[in-house]
């Protein structure tokens, strides 16, 4: 979804509607099939009414042959047309959905991850994806039914008009009020009630997930009862609020029945007078009397549409809101070519701020990553370590200052090109719902099985994989739910080892492991990365003897830098952190046996 300047102001639903154009023919076909099915239902009753009324005049049977054939044909048409409509509309739905998803993806791809801080939580993400999927209803449940319903409603009015204009007028009035005005008014009313419902739903979800999420703590504090009561209270408020919507919908349903029913009565009364005065054939009276009964189906179809439109409109607004966010990274119009290796990475006076944040997360950081050198960035959380990583990956542009890769300012390079040189092993790397092997291969599709195994071995995962019955083919489950957190992290490591980038960023690689294992793994990794330009971000100092330079960050500024030995000698912040980490007594040696008292 490319956002041209002119598109921003347009209503979200109109922008979404543009995506239906390429499948327009199928949508028209769906409308035609739907209209034929509806028309067949109306026609069946109208023709049957004519047939019976005419038969009551005891004509020769030949006079009824056409009507009999018509009744039979219409009865077959209805089912067949409905079947065709279902198939065509589902086919169109899949196509619309495919296009929408690709369009949304293309745009998300530009703004993620730095442009989407609010969408990190899984639940919000799921809702966003559901919102995108809801957009197909615009075509299938709003536009198509409106088109088909309007066509057939008009046809029924024309039929009655041709028999007796007053009757046609009565039906027209009934349809316009019952099928168009009433549902729309009801939606306005229930929309207001819905505005109260939405926050309560959110509150209910929050209270429910909180109760389940914090269950151990609540049980331990003997506080589950009060939390259950709170959920029940929100639920009661929600039921009351939904009562408002229910009344609006109920009123709409009643009024629709009333207006179309009274329109039928009025048409019948007009017909009775017309027959009496000789202006109308008695046979036509049966048609006038019975046709409005079948038209009620049209009303049902149209009554639901405003409700679906309101849903589509709400989710379209949310989708468009995400898509209109500014891109956190400005791509150069004409990207400079990627320089030739080696790739020294130089950071000069870097100030960086996250979109929406007031204070910069980094304030004047200098850093030099000479090819082959290994640099560690340490500091407490919130010191700006993750921001530095985001800027180096070109997920975020500097406010001031420069980052040069191979001597070229990275803002002059295409972001994807930068990331071909600089790769990250993130602490929250996503594991896709596929096999272990596929997850690693993601880094380099062309890799041979041996290379994949070597990468797994480098991440300390090969023995585990070889022990699995399905080996590399083992599925990891949704968000890696079938494997442990440590294994997830190691898969991410194997991935980046397979990618074999000139510059490697390691963001807290040992975060989900216990300190002893984590320190060992960090040492292993630094060995594996020997000779490669590496930036290690960590809060553990144990493995840092191996790195060439240590940069201590605090509150977005560099407070100390030097080698491990040098920093220890200088008796500064690093020395204090080191002492605290070292000072703690070592764990006692394991006794023989499993566990003893």
């Amino acid at each position, binding site marked *: 979804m490319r956002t041209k300047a002119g598109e921003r102001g347009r209503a979200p639903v109109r922008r979404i509607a543009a995506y239906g154009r390429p499948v327009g023919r199928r949508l028209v076909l769906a409308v035609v099939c739907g209209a034929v099915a509806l028309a067949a239902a109306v026609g*069946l009753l109208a023709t049957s009414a004519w*047939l*019976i009324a005419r038969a*009551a005049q005891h004509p020769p049977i030949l006079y009824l042959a056409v009507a009999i054939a018509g009744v039979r044909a219409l*009865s077959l048409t209805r089912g067949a047309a*409905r*079947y065709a409509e*279902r198939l065509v509309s*589902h*086919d169109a739905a899949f*196509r619309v959905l*495919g296009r929408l*998803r*690709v369009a949304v993806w293309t745009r998300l791809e530009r703004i993620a991850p730095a442009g989407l801080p609010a969408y990190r939580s899984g639940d919000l*993400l799921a809702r966003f*994806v559901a919102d995108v999927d809801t957009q197909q209803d615009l075509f299938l449940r709003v536009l198509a039914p409106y088109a088909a319903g309007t066509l057939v409603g008009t046809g029924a009015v024309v039929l009655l008009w041709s028999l007796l204009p007053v009757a046609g007028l009565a039906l027209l009035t009934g349809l316009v009020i019952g099928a168009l005005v009433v549902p729309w008014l009801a939606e306005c009313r229930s929309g207001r009630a819905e505005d109260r419902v939405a926050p309560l739903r959110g509150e209910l*979800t*929050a209270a429910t997930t*909180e109760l*389940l999420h*914090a*269950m*151990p*703590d609540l049980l331990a*504090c*003997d506080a589950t009862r009060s939390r259950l009561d709170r*959920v*029940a209270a929100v639920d009661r408020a929600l*039921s009351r609020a939904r009562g408002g919507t229910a009344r609006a*919908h*109920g*009123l709409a349903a*009643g*009024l*629709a*029945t*009333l207006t179309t*029913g009274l329109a039928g009565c009025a048409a*019948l*009364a007009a017909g009775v007078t017309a027959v*009496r005065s000789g202006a109308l054939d008695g046979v036509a009276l049966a048609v006038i009397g019975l046709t409005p009964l079948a038209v009620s189906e049209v009303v049902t179809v149209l009554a639901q549409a405003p409700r679906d439109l309101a849903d589509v409109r709400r989710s379209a607004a949310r989708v468009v809101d995400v898509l209109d966010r500014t891109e956190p990274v400005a791509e150069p119009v004409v990207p400079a070519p990627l320089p030739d290796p080696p790739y020294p990475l130089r950071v000069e006076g870097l100030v960086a701020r996250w979109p929406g944040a007031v204070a910069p997360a980094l304030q004047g950081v200098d850093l030099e990553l000479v090819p082959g050198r290994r640099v560690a960035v340490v500091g*407490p959380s*919130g010191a700006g370590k993750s921001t530095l990583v985001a800027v180096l990956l070109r997920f975020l542009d500097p406010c001031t200052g420069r980052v040069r890769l191979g001597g070229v300012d990275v803002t002059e390079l295409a972001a994807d090109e930068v*990331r071909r040189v600089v790769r*990250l092993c*993130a602490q929250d790397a*996503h594991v896709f719902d596929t096999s272990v092997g596929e997850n690693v291969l*993601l880094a380099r599709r062309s890799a041979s099985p041996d290379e994949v195994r070597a990468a797994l071995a480098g991440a300390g995962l090969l023995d585990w994989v070889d022990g699995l019955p399905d080996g590399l083919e083992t599925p990891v489950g949704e968000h890696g739910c079938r494997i442990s957190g*440590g294994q997830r992290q190691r898969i*991410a490591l194997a991935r980046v080892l397979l990618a074999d980038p000139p510059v490697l960023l390691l963001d807290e690689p040992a975060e989900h492991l216990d*300190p002893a*294992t984590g320190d060992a793994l960090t040492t292993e990794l630094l060995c594996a990365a020997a000779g490669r330009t590496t930036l290690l971000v960590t809060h553990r100092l144990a493995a840092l003897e191996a790195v060439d330079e240590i940069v201590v960050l605090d509150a977005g500024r560099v407070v100390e830098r030097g080698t491990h030995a040098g920093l220890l000698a200088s008796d500064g912040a690093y020395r204090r952190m080191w002492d*605290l980490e070292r*000072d703690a007594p*070592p*764990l*006692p040696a*394991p006794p023989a046996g499993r*566990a003893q*008292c």
Partner: protein
Amino acid sequence: MPATGDAVLRPLDPRLLAHARAARAYLALCVVLGLVAAGLLIAQAGLLAGTITAAFLEGADLAALRMSLLLLAAVVLARAGLDWVQEAAAHRSAAVVTAQLRSRLLAHAVRLGPGWLTGERSAELGALATRGLDGLDDYFARYLPQLVLAVLVPVAVLLRVLGADLVAAVTIAVTLPLVPVFMVLIGLATRHRAQRQWRTLAVLAGHFLDVVAGLPTLKVFGRARAQADAIREVTDRHARAAMSTLRVVFLSALVLELVSTLSVALVAVGLGLRLIGGAVDLETALLVLILAPEAYRPLRQVGVHHHACVEGLAAAGRVVAVLETPPLRPPASGAHAIAVPDVRLHPVRVEGVTVEYPGRAQPAVADVSLELRPGETVALVGPTGCGKSTLAALLAGFLAPARGRVSVGGVDLAGVDPDAWRRRLAYLPQQPRLLAGTIAENVRLADPGAGEAAVCRALSAAGLRGGPGPDTLLGERGCGLSAGQRQRVALARTLLRDVPLLVLDEPTAGLDIATERAVVDALRPHCAYRTVLLITHRPGPLGLADRVVRLDDRSVPAPEAVPA
């Protein structure tokens, strides 16, 4: 994946009605409204047929037919009122029933406890208790009333037609049962394909969510842009597969439509032919013609809302499956409840305990014994995944051992009411969770009656002096605090409880070393006169321990077996 299988429910399942009382009242209302609807339908048909016949054949004028037309208008008015009541009642009842099921579901989840409610299940149950139950909305609001109508209206219509014209009644009586019969036959024939199709759709939905969630990772590896083609391809592939299945699945709707419209045509043509011969009069013929489609309409509507039924019943099946999961130990009723022995006088013993998690080959802990003597602080150390947290959860009464027992002064905890037991202990889980609200509210969770001074004392004991104040408002899951600050708030909450037994699972996790020191110092007086089980894999807190017990590593690398 969940170990709980879903219960398979019938369209109107007594088990669902048993769990949702409000649904029974609603069902009764549906029956009453359905009967009235059928009566009005028949009345309207009679009036309409009578009016048309009188005007057509007898030449009656408007004045003569005024009564009939007014009655007709009255019937229309009554039907409108009925629609109003039906629609409003449907939505309201759906809200009430889902609220009732939600509250039962959550209360039962509390009874099942954290031992059953692992992280994954917690997310799943959260989704079921919110969005999942929404799937029951349409089931109650749309499907159930139609189901009732589908039973009542055809029978009523058939009886009325029988009173008017035997031939038409027989035609309807013969064709009507064909609808459900064909539906069932086609349903059976296509069930396998249909199920596969719904799974396909689920995979399709899941794939997009998965790649969107992994977008940053894909960007790092330069795969994000290429993924657009993959999304298009996956959607197309699934669309093709789904379409071939839908062609079969929609057959049942096709047959339903065909049977009902062909029957109406059959009735109409038959009436026409017999009218010519004078075997039937116009009024009867019109009455039957108006009523005939009404006999099939509710059945068709049931078909239309079939998807709501499938979705709703799937959710209901999961709800019933959870509700029918027996709790870890049945709550001891008043008379049989064993008094909780005093931890201040008696040792707490873990005796040869083995804990197994369902679906895992390896037990989380195997044959472990441990004794906590009154007033003693025991530190439990060992590598990640060796079962330390399992032992803590066991002491907190969240798990039941597969073999062995936990006893206090010789009394097996299995016989003690878990709530009563938990009132005697304070437990700090490995990943403590905070709630939305102020810091003080979070701390006061442990003791709602605690005064401001007590809360402040607990906070400063937990090393939160000078940090965010007690009135600081936190977001969901304690959002707004750093991990270390959250840990300290949870610790303050634990310290607020004046209980004889403390179970502290990694009390200094996520703290920097200076803070860890402060916390350890603050903990010291609290541990001094209590029985404490202290789990740590950091060396800092070991200074508190009177004794250190090491739990061996598991030989097989299993996924971390930590409940929640």
